[in-house]
């Protein structure tokens, strides 16, 4: 599968001490071209029907994820399943307000997920800060830091809204409209600059493999 768009420049990893630098990989993220049309369509179908959610409740909105697993809403029907480790998860649900401290962890986890990966912004806070719009410690616009595939509005959105959001995401995946991973890789420097602007103690590599 020779579909990698290779960019071989190394990352500087200036946030790390000299001692720590060899402990982390310094390669840049790469973007990928889709495979042949029908192959990609089939694979997208599989991706859409097996969405593994990273079990990281980043804010108060995460409380709305739990009912999804219960008998009443039963998200497993749609091939959704929670997954405890970013390596295996494919969907990152940002659950509401995002403090700077959490954002740092979110970036790390997002980068540790394997592509193709999708981000769902949950609740108003991820759109424009919501009720925390003037807080000194809460971001206002998630899409300046991560490529967001879909927003679900509300404060809080109900589980039904979430299901609708997931289904919308599935349609988008099947249609091949979700390109977050590639977008992140192509605009890597812009995202990184935004992230570094607010994350003051950047004591991690520029890209967390």
């Amino acid at each position: 599968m020779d579909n990698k768009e290779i960019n071989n420049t190394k990352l500087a990893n200036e946030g790390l001490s000299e001692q720590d630098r060899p402990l982390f990989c310094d390669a840049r993220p790469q973007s990928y071209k889709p495979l042949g049309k029908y192959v990609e369509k089939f694979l997208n179908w599989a991706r859409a029907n097996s969405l593994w959610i990273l079990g990281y409740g980043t804010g108060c909105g995460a409380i709305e994820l739990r009912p999804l697993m219960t008998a009443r809403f039963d998200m497993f029907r749609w091939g959704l399943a929670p997954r405890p480790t970013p390596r295996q998860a494919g969907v990152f649900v940002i659950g509401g307000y995002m403090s700077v401290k959490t954002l740092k962890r979110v970036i790390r986890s997002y980068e540790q997920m394997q592509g193709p990966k999708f981000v769902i912004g949950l609740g108003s806070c991820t759109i424009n800060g919501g009720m925390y719009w003037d807080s000194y410690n809460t971001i206002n616009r998630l899409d300046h830091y991560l490529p967001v595939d879909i927003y679900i509005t509300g404060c809080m959105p109900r589980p039904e809204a979430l299901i609708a959001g997931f289904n919308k995401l599935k349609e988008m995946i099947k249609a091949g409209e979700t390109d977050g991973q590639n977008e992140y890789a192509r605009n890597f420097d812009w995202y990184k600059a935004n992230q570094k602007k607010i994350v003051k103690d950047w004591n991690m590599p520029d890209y967390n493999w």
Partner: protein
Amino acid sequence: MQEILNKLIDRYAIEPIQENRHNQAFVTIEKNRLPDVLTWLRDYEDYTHLAFITAVDYPEIEKIQLTYMLHNYILHTDLGLRVLLDRTRPEMVSIHHLWKQVATYQRELREMFGIDFPGSPGLQENFALEGWKDIPPMRRDFDTKEYSEKTYFPRPGRQTHDPKEYMKEKLYPSAKEDK
């Protein structure tokens, strides 16, 4: 309650006392005497529980006020000890030797108010704000809205309403027409 206040007055000649309820009172003491008083209260008067430490910023009088809230599990009474610190260089004696967990409170106060507690373990470690370089955000002269707008890419098109008027408008649209 009165008993303990009397004792305090007798022992430490403390004057300003504010008694809120029959089982809650606040006294203001000199900052250097605080460890003495706390030790005595803890060891002899059964105020074994330090509920919290909190701070209030008074830029008007150039002071920061610290409140140590103690609780007595036998009498179920609360006693707040207040200390006034100089606002330009706020510094307070650390009491982590009395209650180990106080170190965490002191870390938070250092970060949010910029109060120094020399000798407190892990004082310089991050509490919630990692790598904060501005003036401490809980100081009242820190403008959080301005900071947010400067830092967090505000999304244009945001509207602000007066909640009272807005709800009235939404819930009783007819009332408006009446005007």
